[in-house]
C-alpha cells in the first residue's frame, strides 16, 4: 500500500503536463460543437421553416451523428481523407485536430438538443414582447430570448464539457499524446506491472479537472441568475 502511494505521488507530476492538451482539445471541441449546434438549431427552427430541406438536414444530421460510436467517427475522419485524397496533405495536420473535429461534429448534435430544450423553456411572450416593441426577430433572439435560454442551458453545458473532456481520452487511439496517450505508453513501458497505479492516477486527474469544471459552471449559473429569477 505504501509502495502504491509512493509510486502514485511520484508519477502524478509527470502526467500533469499532459493535462493542458486534454483540456485544450476538450475546450476547442466544446466551442466548435456549440457553434455548430447553434447553427443546427437555426436550421431546424429558424424563422419561417416548416418541413423544408434545411430542417430535414438538421434532423438527419442529428440522428446520424448521435448514432455513430465516437471511435468509429474518429477513425473515419483520421484515415478517411488521407487514403481517399492523399494529395491533400490531410495527414500532416497535428493529430489533436482530428480529435477536435470528431468531437465537435458528434457533440454539435447534442448541443443542438440542449439549446433547443433551453430555447423551448422560454415563454413565447418574451419574443412577442420584443417583436411588438419593434425589435427584429434576430434582435429579439440575441438580446432577450438567447440570454435567458443560455442560463437555462448552463447546467447541461457543464455536463457536456465534462463529457467531452472524458471523451478526448479516445484520441490516444490515433496517436495523440495526451493524458490517456501518456498513461498507455507508460503502462507498456513498465511491462504492465503498474497498470492499476497508472490508471488510478489518470482517473484522479480526470476527476479533479472535471470537478473544477462542474464548479465553474455552477458558479457561472448562480452569478448570471442573480436577481433575474428566471424559473429554473
Amino acid at each position: 500500500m505504501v509502495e502504491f502511494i509512493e509510486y502514485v505521488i511520484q508519477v502524478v507530476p509527470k502526467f500533469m503536463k499532459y493535462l493542458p492538451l486534454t483540456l485544450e482539445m476538450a475546450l476547442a471541441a466544446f466551442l466548435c460543437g456549440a457553434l455548430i449546434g447553434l447553427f443546427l438549431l437555426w436550421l431546424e427552427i429558424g424563422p419561417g421553416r416548416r418541413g423544408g430541406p434545411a430542417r430535414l438536414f438538421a434532423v438527419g444530421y442529428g440522428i446520424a451523428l448521435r448514432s455513430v460510436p465516437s471511435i468509429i467517427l474518429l477513425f473515419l475522419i483520421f484515415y478517411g481523407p488521407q487514403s481517399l485524397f492523399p494529395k491533400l496533405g490531410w495527414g500532416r495536420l497535428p493529430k489533436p485536430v482530428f480529435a477536435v473535429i470528431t468531437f465537435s461534429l458528434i457533440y454539435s448534435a447534442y448541443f443542438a438538443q440542449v439549446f433547443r430544450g433551453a430555447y423551448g423553456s422560454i415563454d413565447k411572450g418574451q419574443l412577442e414582447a420584443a417583436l411588438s416593441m419593434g425589435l427584429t426577430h434576430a434582435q429579439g433572439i440575441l438580446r432577450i430570448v438567447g440570454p435567458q435560454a443560455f442560463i437555462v442551458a448552463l447546467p447541461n453545458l457543464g455536463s457536456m464539457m465534462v463529457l467531452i473532456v472524458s471523451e478526448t481520452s479516445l484520441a490516444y487511439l490515433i496517436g495523440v499524446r495526451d493524458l490517456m496517450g501518456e498513461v498507455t505508453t507508460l503502462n507498456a513501458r513498465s511491462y504492465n506491472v503498474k497498470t492499476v497505479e497508472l490508471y488510478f492516477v489518470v482517473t484522479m486527474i480526470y476527476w479533479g479537472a472535471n470537478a473544477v469544471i462542474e464548479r465553474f459552471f455552477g458558479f457561472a449559473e448562480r452569478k448570471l441568475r442573480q436577481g433575474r429569477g428566471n424559473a429554473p
Partner: protein
Amino acid sequence: MFEMRGIKKSFNGNRVLNGVDVTVDKGEVVAIIGASGSGKTTLLRCANFLERADEGNVRVGDKWVDVKKANKKDILDIRRMTAFVFQNYSLFSNKTALGNVSECLTTPRKVPRDEARRIAMEALTRVGIADKADDYPSELSGGQQQRVGIARAIAVSPDIIFLDEPTSALDPELIGEILLLLKDLALAGATMLIVTHEIRFAMEVANQVLFMDEGLVVESGPPREIFRFPKEERTRAFLRRFTSDFDYQI
C-alpha cells in the same frame, strides 16, 4: 390615426375574425368588449402583426399596409409606430425595469444609450415606480410589473398603444390603480385601443366602445349609448351579465 379595415382571420379553417373595421382617432380611447372567444385579442394581435390576418388593411399614421402584401419592413414600421401592453405583462425577465424600457429605445429605435436611460427614467417616474428602476421583473409585484409594461409603451411615444386586458391578471386591489393610471394617460392625450372587461373603466374613459361577438363588431358607439341603450340583443345579453352581478340570491 389608426385604422383597420376588413380584417379577416382563420385558425385552421376556424373563422375568428369575420371582416372587422376599427378606427381610432388621435387622442381617442377605444374600448373593445365582448365575451371570451369573440376575437378581441386576436384583433389586437393582428393590429401589430403578432398574428397575421388573412385579409384586410392596417393603417398607422400615414402608412397603409395591405396585410396580404405586408413585408418585413412594413411590419417593422407598424410595430415601431405602435406599442403593446400585455395581459401577463411580458416584461423581459433578463432586464431590469429600466432596462426593459430603454431596450425598446436603444435597439429598435437607435436612441443613444444615455438619452434612452433619461427617457426611460421619465416614463418610470410617470407610472410611479422610479424607485424600482434597478429591480428585475421577478422582484416586482404584478401591479408594478404592469406599470413597467405601460412605461415601456409610453416611452417610445407611439401613435397608438394596444392594451390586451391589461388588468385581467391583477389582484382586485391592484386593478383600480392601474385603471387610474390608464385614465391619466388618456386625459394626457394618449391614443389607445384597449381590450377590457372593466365596464366601468370603459364607461368613464373610452370615447367609443366596440362590442364584438363571433368575430364581428356587432355594435359600436359612445359608451353611454352602448351601455345604457344597447340596440342589439347580443349586446344586451352580454351586458346583462355585468348588471346582474347583484341579482342573485343565496
